[in-house]
């Protein structure tokens, strides 16, 4: 009787090998060494896998601690690191630049039942992320020609384009009060509890001074008139409509002086100018 033919196990493709190792690292189920074709098995395999999981978690945690200081202060280091690990495993990074690792954390927090009793946390994370993004946003490009256009133009045809280094963020929660409180070395917990209990909706205005790239972004509370004004600008409304939205109490001259000084504006668009009209179409 002839011996049974010996079949050599077909080689694994590199793509398959890499998919299986990635799956072993990120998947919550117990991983099997044989699937990724590594030399190590048993305890050696588990140790190697743990080293990569530990590295990934440490890289993500380190970056997220910088990107979400308010959430870190609210949760404390241990709970925050546990959140980071579960986020990293559930929403693995899409980019090789850790500056973006926190992009989906606010939305992820909203999905967690364990944090459902802290419904303000996701919006606090959104504010942290806005501050992080503004710290690296391009400066405003507002020029003297923009100012001339603003002085000479028709308010019904002009619109103000906000700089990429400013961000308006609305919340049903007192996010600015919470942000400020957690910046303190010794937070006033009674004031924080009171702010949450009062459940005041707030809109944050986040901006970075255009002449100092090293400066940390500012976070301010927008009053109701300024909030309506910025919302109208964000929506691309013309100056006359935006001013109507803001209401009579809004001081446009004072706002404009500050906007130019702090670099909140990028450009003035004129719908009557052919190139701007196309841009705004």
């Amino acid at each position, binding site marked *: 009787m002839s011996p049974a033919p010996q079949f050599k196990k077909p*080689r*694994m*493709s*590199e*793509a398959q*090998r*890499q*998919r299986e*190792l*990635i*799956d072993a*690292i*990120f998947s919550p189920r117990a991983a099997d060494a044989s699937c*990724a*074709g*590594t*030399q*190590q098995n048993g*305890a050696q*395999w588990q*140790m*190697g*896998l*743990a*080293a*990569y999981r*530990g*590295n*990934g978690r440490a*890289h*993500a945690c380190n970056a997220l601690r910088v990107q979400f200081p308010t959430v870190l202060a609210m949760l404390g280091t241990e709970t925050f690191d546990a959140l980071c690990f579960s986020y990293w495993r559930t*929403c*693995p*990074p*899409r*980019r*090789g*630049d*850790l*500056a973006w*690792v926190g992009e989906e954390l606010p939305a992820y927090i909203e999905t967690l039942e364990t944090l459902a009793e802290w419904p303000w946390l996701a919006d606090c994370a959104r504010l942290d992320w806005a501050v992080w993004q503004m*710290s*690296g*946003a*391009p*400066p405003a490009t507002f020029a003297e020609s923009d100012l001339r256009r603003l002085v000479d133009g028709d308010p019904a045809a002009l619109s103000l384009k906000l700089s990429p280094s400013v961000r308006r963020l609305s919340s049903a929660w007192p996010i600015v009060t919470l942000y400020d409180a957690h910046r303190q070395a010794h937070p006033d917990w009674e004031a924080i509890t009171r702010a949450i209990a009062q459940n005041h909706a707030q809109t944050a205005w986040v901006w970075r001074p255009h002449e100092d*790239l*090293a400066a940390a972004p500012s976070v301010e509370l927008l009053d109701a008139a300024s909030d309506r004004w910025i919302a109208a600008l964000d929506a691309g409304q013309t100056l006359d409509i935006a001013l109507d939205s803001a209401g009579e109490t809004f001081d446009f001259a004072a706002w404009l002086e500050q906007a130019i000084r702090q670099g909140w504006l990028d450009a003035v668009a004129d719908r009557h100018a052919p190139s701007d009209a196309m841009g705004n179409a």
Partner: protein
Amino acid sequence: MQSVPHMNGIGLRQPHYREFRAARPSLGFVEVHSENFFNPHDAAAQVLAAVRRDYAVSLHGVGLALGSACGVDDAHLEQLAALVERIEPVRVSDHACFARAPWSQRGIIHANDLLPIAFTHGSLDILCSNVGQVQERLKRPLLLENLSAYLDFAERDFSEPQFFAELGRRTGCGFLLDVNNLMVNALNADEPDPLQSVCNWIDELADIAAPGFVGEIHLAGFSAQAGLIIDDHSSPVSEPVWQAYRHALKRLGPLPTLIEWDEHLPAFSVLLGEAAKAEALCAAHRVARAAVAGVAA
């Protein structure tokens, strides 16, 4: 007597920025992680621009994931290309690793880590293709660094030095020899004589690679954690790594050498002390080589 210019450098990390600018130490170059400086509008970009006015800068990436079968991220490459244009670095390097792969319903993810590649023909083809694409975009050769790997693959067609020598032949890229990574791998493989194993690795590469293939050396510290030696750059360069470094200098000649220290950063003077030690070893080898050349002439 004219002083010999310094060859060696340090990895510049954010907590040391202020001291670095105040001390203005004599160094051959400064190395930074490319990804930390992708954004041209943040404070770090200003710091790097200021450093570049006084020092040669080597850009060392951790995110290209050049061994990934799904290819490199075009957006990442464009950001690196823009940084290279701004900084005009003396060298650009990254790792011979993969990190990008499709996962579950999420599409292509990036592990933000340096995951091991197999030393196979298939893996070499992927690496050559990706390195070729990057070099074409950057219009300059890359240096590829050997990994510390906590898992490795059973299938292999090459020894690691053979794999890298072949990569250099096919793409024209250079090599960044991380001596600490070799030591970490030797220790994790329970080699009976880890130092000898590292020296053998260096000998094999020196014997088969094209002259000038190795363009830079990295030295760092490691730590023992949960049954493994981890390349965490958290401590001084260990004595066995210094010994292996001496061997590398003997085989490869003096090369720009970097002290990497990323975790538990020491006082800036300690980091400079490590760089000075590497500088002294390089200088000794330069002198020895000159003497031998003089005798031969």
